[in-house]
């Protein structure tokens, strides 16, 4: 049985980053876009934890905790805005929210 190495973590992280990026760019539903942003943040977290483990340095893990906190705050603010928007526009599609476009 092969041991799980840092490379494996990095590949998983890159895959998550890619999925998240494509999701942000292509999906029109803002909820999904927010979920994709969570994927990107979690890909970063996996990177941080993997390198912290590999370098035997606790700073990376601490930083990951900050990122999780940040993600929670960001999700709370983003979903709050989304609910306010839905109350006015009755939609969650990004391309239909175009008040600032003329």
């Amino acid at each position, binding site marked *: 049985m092969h041991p799980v190495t840092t490379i494996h973590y990095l590949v998983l992280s890159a895959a998550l980053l890619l999925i998240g*990026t494509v999701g*942000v*760019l292509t999906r029109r539903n803002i909820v999904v876009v927010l979920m994709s942003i969570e994927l990107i943040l979690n890909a970063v977290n996996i990177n941080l934890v993997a390198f912290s483990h590999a370098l035997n340095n606790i700073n990376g893990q601490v930083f990951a905790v900050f990122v999780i906190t940040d993600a929670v705050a960001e999700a709370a603010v983003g979903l709050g805005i989304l609910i306010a928007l839905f109350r006015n526009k009755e939609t969650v599609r*990004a*391309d239909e929210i*175009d008040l*600032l476009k003329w």
Partner: protein
Amino acid sequence: MNFLDQIWLIPLFPLFGAALMFLFGKKLDPQPASDVALAPGLAEPHGHGAGAHHHPASPLKWLIDVICPGMVLLSFLFSVGAVWQLRQLPVRIHQVIQFTWIAGMPFHMANGHLATFQADWGFLLDPLSSVMILVVTGIGFLIHVYSTGYMAHDNGYYRFFGYLNLFVFFMLMLVLANNYMLLFVGWEGVGLCSYLLIGFYFHKKSAGDAGKKAFIVNRVGDAGFILGMLLMMSVLGTVRFIDVKSILSSGQFHAETAGFGVLSAMAVLLFFGATGKSAQVPLYIWLPDAMEGPTPVSALIHAATMVTAGVYMVARSAALFQLTPSASTVVAVVGAFTAILAATIALVQNDIKRVLAYSTVSQLGYMFLALGVGAYWVAIFHLFTHAFFKALLFLGSGSVIHAVGGEQDMRKMGGLKDKIPITHWTMFIGSVAIAGIPGLAGFFSKDEILWQAYSSPGGSKMLWFVGLATAGLTAFYMWRLMNLTFYGKSRVAAGTHVHESPASMTVPLILLAAGSVLAGWLGTPKLWGLTWRFHAFETWLAPSFRAAATEAAKEGPHDASLEWVLMGLSVAIAIIGITIARYFYHHKPEIPDSIEKAVKPLHALLYNKWYVDEIYDFLFVNGLCKGGGLALGAFDRNVVDGGVNGAGWLTRFSSKVSIWWDTWIVDGTVRFTAFFVKLLSYPACLLQTGRVQSYAFFVVLGVLAAFGYYIAR
């Protein structure tokens, strides 16, 4: 008082009466409006049984009775005065030109000469027109009086008298006019009044149709009159009677000259006009139908006066017809043919007025026969006597119809002799007169016509024989009428109260009967050798037909015994006709029925008037009118509509081309320009879509590019 210069008053009186009636008549005799709506019951609405239709007489109605006959009486008195003064003149001709109607219009005549055409409102009184005005006003007055009794219970009393007075006015214009144009005014005017009076019971469809038929058939004849008049204008350059006569008798036109054919055409065209007004073949068909009018109208217009207008007009054109023997022959042949044709139809008709109507057509045929053989004074003489006895017969038949409550079918009469004695005796006199029994008016004029038809240069044995046969038929159908109406058993419908007519009706009958006896004594045969007074008629009329008189003087050795023989023959045939009719319809009433059965097709042919109406219907009404209508329809659909449709198609086609051009060329250019610009701008558009995600995409691309750059370096 100088009546001759006041001649314009003669027609003016009746016109005034008519104007009063049309302006104020409604006030004098107000009609409940509902009466007109009650129409269907009013066949001949003087049946006394039909009390529901009567309304109480207006208190002022007697004014109508005074004004209208009074105006005609005034005209009559003035006419008598004028004729009396005319008699004193050395040359018995008097022309009064009141004013110019159509003032000197220069125009080129057919021969290239410049002429001035002029027509006046002018009156000409000469022996011919003096006879006519006396007949029109005299008989007209009696018929007016009769009408006050006959029409007393009718609606539209004032309307009737207004039309009647208007008729007398136009008739007087016709006979007093001094030129053909003014004569034509009267000619059309009497036609109008005839139409109005035939259609007097306008709520009856048959009456309205008969009025229209009379008017339209007369129009056909009028076309001939107008053409003849225009031809006269262009050939002679004038339409004034005196001028026409002097030009024609100046010897300018001879049988040899080129103008001769034109004169014949002119004469035939004028005669064609006369066949319309005077009910001759081929245009006689309107007169029998005209009996739809009230009976006094039949008597005045369709027996005594208006229908003789054609005779008068041809007699007035005597100078023309004398120059054209061929046209005169046409007149004589048409007259003789009409006389016998109408007499055969009269043999079997059952409607009392229709028998008299065909009798009128037949007698008018006699007059044209006389005109055609050049015996103009005889034609006018017959017109004169006929006016008396035919007016009498019509008024008598009206009195009979009145007595039996509106029934006109002779099969439902019979045995009326003792119930209405005055009517019977007056009609008896009228029938004897028309049958040609010596001593009464009809004998003298008819016998003179037959003699002239036999002996005058234009006559022939054939014409005489047709005239003689007609005389026999006349006697027969008149006695058939008398027997069916007055003698034998009564076949009157039960419950009819047969009664003699009021005095207003019987007095005119008696006066006309007296006229029917006496009128003929003005023109006894010269053969009888009586004093001049007894053939004053010919002497009196001679100036009007002076050329004719000289023609007649050349009639060769007067064969007295021959004339006696012919006279005897005509009396004999009249008596034979009377006897046969008496035997058939009085002694052996079954004989006519068995004869009728034996010659069924012939009877049907006569009863249906030789199917002339049907033939005309087929030829003209259906053939020409409907065929013409179809042709016009086809023309409309194919040519007119075709033009419209073609234009429409062309417009549609050109607009399609225009649409194609607009869509593909004009719009195409515009759209291509827009498309081209859009194509060029597309990449630039991508830079600013307003979509966050596409911006993010470019960010990602940028990041990747930056990474790529660093990695590739």
